[in-house]
C-alpha cells in the first residue's frame, strides 16, 4: 500500500471512529416535541371532509355530464337553422299568419291555413321524438 493510500485509509478510519458530540440531547428532544405540539392538528373536522368529498363528487358528475353532452350529443346538423316564422312556431310565440296574408280572407281560409301549420308542427315534433328515441336507444346499447 502506498503512502497516499495509507493516508486515505487513515483519514477514512478517523472519521468513521470519531462520533460527533451532541450537546444537550434532551433539550433537542424537547425542541422537537414542542415543534410537533405547535403543528396544526392532523385531523381536519369531519364536516369539512364531508363537504369537500361531496363537492368533489358533484364536480366530477358535472364534468361527466358536460363531456357526455359534448361528445355524445353534439349539435345536430339534421335540424338546420329554420326561417324565423318556423322558429317562432317552435318557441310557441308566433303570430302564425305570414306577413303577405290577405286581411280580407275568410275565417275558413285562416282556419285551414293554421290547421295545416299545426299538422306540420306535430309532424316535425314526432320526427324529433323518433330521432331522440333512436339516439337514446343507441346510447343505451353502447352502455350495456
Amino acid at each position, binding site marked *: 500500500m502506498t*503512502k*497516499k493510500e495509507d*493516508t*486515505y485509509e487513515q*483519514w*477514512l478510519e*478517523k*472519521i*468513521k471512529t*470519531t*462520533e*460527533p*458530540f*451532541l*450537546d444537550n*440531547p434532551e433539550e*433537542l*428532544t424537547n*425542541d*422537537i*416535541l414542542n*415543534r*410537533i*405540539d405547535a*403543528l396544526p392538528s*392532523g385531523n381536519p373536522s369531519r364536516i369539512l371532509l364531508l363537504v369537500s368529498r361531496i363537492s368533489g363528487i358533484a364536480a366530477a358528475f358535472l364534468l361527466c355530464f358536460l363531456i357526455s353532452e359534448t361528445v355524445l350529443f353534439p349539435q345536430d346538423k339534421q335540424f338546420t337553422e329554420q326561417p324565423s316564422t318556423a322558429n317562432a312556431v317552435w318557441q310557441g310565440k308566433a303570430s302564425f299568419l305570414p306577413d303577405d296574408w290577405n286581411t280580407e280572407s275568410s275565417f275558413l281560409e285562416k282556419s285551414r291555413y293554421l290547421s295545416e301549420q299545426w299538422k306540420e308542427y306535430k309532424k316535425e315534433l314526432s320526427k324529433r321524438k323518433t330521432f331522440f328515441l333512436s339516439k337514446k336507444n343507441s346510447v343505451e346499447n353502447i352502455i350495456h
Partner: protein
Amino acid sequence: MMNEREIQILIDKCKKQDTAAFAALVAEYRQLVFRLAFRLLCDEEEARDMVQETFVKVWLSLDKYNREYRFSTWIYTIAGNVCYDRLRSLQHSPSGSMQGISLANISLSSGEDMEQSLINKELKELILRFTHELTPKQKLVFMLREIEGLEVSEVEAITGMSAEKIKSNLYLARKQIRIKINLMEDNL
C-alpha cells in the same frame, strides 16, 4: 438499543398521536441523524436544525412508513433528503460555502464541555480537509456508503439513485479526495 419489534410498537403508538412514544423514538435515533447531518454539513448548529427538521417530517409522514424497510433506513432517507436540500441551498447561496460554515464556527462554545467541542471541531476540520469540494450528491453517497458503511441497496433506497449512479458518484468522490491527498502529500 431497541430491537425492530419494540420500534414497531413505538411507531404504532406514534400513529395514535402518542408523543411520549415519539420522544422515545427520537431518543433512539437522534444520534444517528445528528451524526449524518454533522458529517454532511460540518456544523453543529446546522446539524441540530437538521435533526429537528428530520423528526418533524418523520412525525408528519409516519403513515407513509413502509414496514418492509428497517426504520433506520427510513430515518436515513428523510435525514439524507433534508441534509441534501440544505447542502444544495448552501452551495447556491452567495455567502454559504461549506468552508464558510466551518471557519465561521471554529470558535468554541462556552467553557463547559471543552473537550467535546474540540472533538467536533477536529472532526469538522478533518472532514472538510478533503471533502469540501465534493458536490452534494457525491458527499451524500460517500458519507452513506464509505463512512456510515451502508450497503449499496440501502443507499439506493435512501437516495433514490440507481446502483450505477451511486457507483459513479462514489468513484468521483474518492477520486477527488485522492487528488486532494496527493496535493497535500506533494506539498509536504
